[in-house]
């Protein structure tokens, strides 16, 4: 059997399915439901077995279309930075507010992806977010929480 990344993913999926199945058996059901033909744990149990079956099949059967990924050509650094910026954005959006964090998120993303035209970066962040906020909040009446704008008195 050839060990490739697809097989490793299948193995991880097999372990995940086993854990899922174990957790499914631990679901607490009402006493009167224990022996019912169907209760809250029935469907997850079937799913757990289905996961084991298909990932097991993928592990055992030969892989005629092996996918070869050239890792050296992949841009891991930029992707990781972008993910990190998104996490920071997610962590601050509620506390600081939508307008400021979104604008800063956009500027930071443009910058890390290699953009250096500051005027364009500014135009596609602060004014763009303000216009989008107006569309959501002002026109479509979708509430946007923004402590920062509330603090400076722009938003009610």
């Amino acid at each position: 059997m050839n060990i490739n990344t697809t097989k490793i993913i299948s193995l991880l999926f097999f372990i995940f399915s086993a854990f899922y199945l174990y957790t499914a058996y631990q679901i607490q059901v009402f006493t009167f439901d224990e022996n019912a033909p169907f209760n809250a744990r029935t469907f997850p149990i079937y799913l757990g077995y289905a996961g084991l079956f298909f990932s097991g099949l993928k592990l055992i059967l030969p892989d005629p279309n092996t996918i070869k990924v050239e890792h050296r050509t992949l841009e891991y650094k930029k992707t990781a930075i972008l993910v990190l910026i998104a996490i920071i954005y997610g962590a601050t959006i509620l506390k600081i507010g939508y307008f400021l964090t979104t604008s800063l998120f956009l500027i930071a993303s443009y910058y890390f992806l290699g953009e250096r035209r500051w005027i364009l970066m500014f135009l596609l962040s602060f004014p763009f977010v303000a216009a989008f906020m107006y569309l959501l909040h002002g026109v479509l009446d979708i509430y946007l929480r923004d402590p920062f704008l509330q603090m400076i008195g722009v938003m009610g």
Partner: protein
Amino acid sequence: MIEGILIGLTTALTFQNILMVMIGCFFGTIIGMLPGLGPMTAIALMIPITYGFDPATGLILMAGVYYGAVFGGSTSSILLNAPGVPGTVATSFDGYPMAQQGKAGKALAIAAWSSFAGGTLAAIYLLFMAPSLSKVSLSFRSPDYFALMILGLTAIAAFSSKGQFIKAMMMVVLGLMLASVGQDSLSDITRFTFNNMNLTDGISFVLVVMATFAMSEALTIILKRNDPTAAAKQVSLTELGSIKIDKEERAKMLKTIPRTSIIGFIIGVLPGAGATIASFLAYGMERNLVSDEEKEKFGKGSVHGLAAPETANNAACSGAFVPLLTLGIPGSGTTAVMLGALLGFGIQPGPRLYVTNPEIFWSVIMSMYIGMVILLILNLPLIPYIARILAVPKNYLIPLILFFSITGIYVMSFNNFDIYLMIGIAVVATFMRLYDFPMPPLILAFVLGGLMEENLRRSLLLSDGSWTFLWDRTLTACILATTISIVIWHIYKTIIKK
């Protein structure tokens, strides 16, 4: 039915709804042109905005985006030989050679007219077929629905897997597993929440769609150093040529369009198949039906070869609405996203939709036709300029996609946890995409998970825990036999390939 059509027209022809179709078509065309970003991403990005509208308007907007994205995919196939969506790959076989001969404008016009005709004819088929199918599907019982869902999931796994059926089935199971997180709908018992209150209501559908499509597409583009907009920078406005179609070409199109619209529509109705298979089948069928002289021109800029896949893929898009509107079971990843959005509006599509919400049922059908007209009027003259808009560098495009994704979740939940969960799922999905694990089966399974469990529950309770419900009714047994054949055939194919 006349009354229904009038209801649909009254709803679809309001100023707001026409505006939504126009915006949807325009936005969809732009997204659809970008290789890698297909209709599912376009619709996913639109979902948060649709929640500001009533359900009919929201669905009309999404339908407009759908058609626009398919049309946009054809444009990049013809101009750049870079199909935006898999459904338009066959378009590039004859569209791109035609563009290289200096007839890009003509190729775009043939594509636009064929799409228009295919979509219009399919909307007419849908108009007559949907109400009758709705009546038939009223006789469906829980076991039939359960079996039909299994068939839908197996079929989408079979057709979207590019020969990797087991991988696709793993994604189906993963989608169902994700759908099982949260409270059980009947007993309210929490499952797989690990005492985290944020998971009590389950994982949001929009979150999963945004993560697996919009966000992971954006991350994949960065990771693989792709630049979907690079090719658009090469397009010259002066090289498009005339968009006029002459008599002879029109005659060829008139032969091709009716037959390929029928095959496209039928393929679209089948669960899991969709625009890609429809366009390839139509291309193949057309090649067999034309004269030997015409056959020689296939692959070198044939009018038949361009009109056939274009008609079929648009007809398939309309056909895909049939199982969604009549059975409440989406036949493709894109209609699964629409089903999720409808459920978000509190509407359950199915055989009773045209009784309980006729304005939604009919206005969607009517707006399809209006969408086709708008695509033709709005997009054809604007194509060169839209192609120019696509020259926006990826340095701007990617952050904007991420911004729309995160905003979509933020306005729905105001919850940091959901944003982290979305980023986590997107990272995993990006990695799985690298190894060709398809995402549409996961989405379809996620949307159908709750319905499937509900129908299995009813079936098992009615049969007192016995699995005989799977073959007690002829219809259930037939559906199940089809499913088993698909599974066996694909596993057999996997084994004999080695």
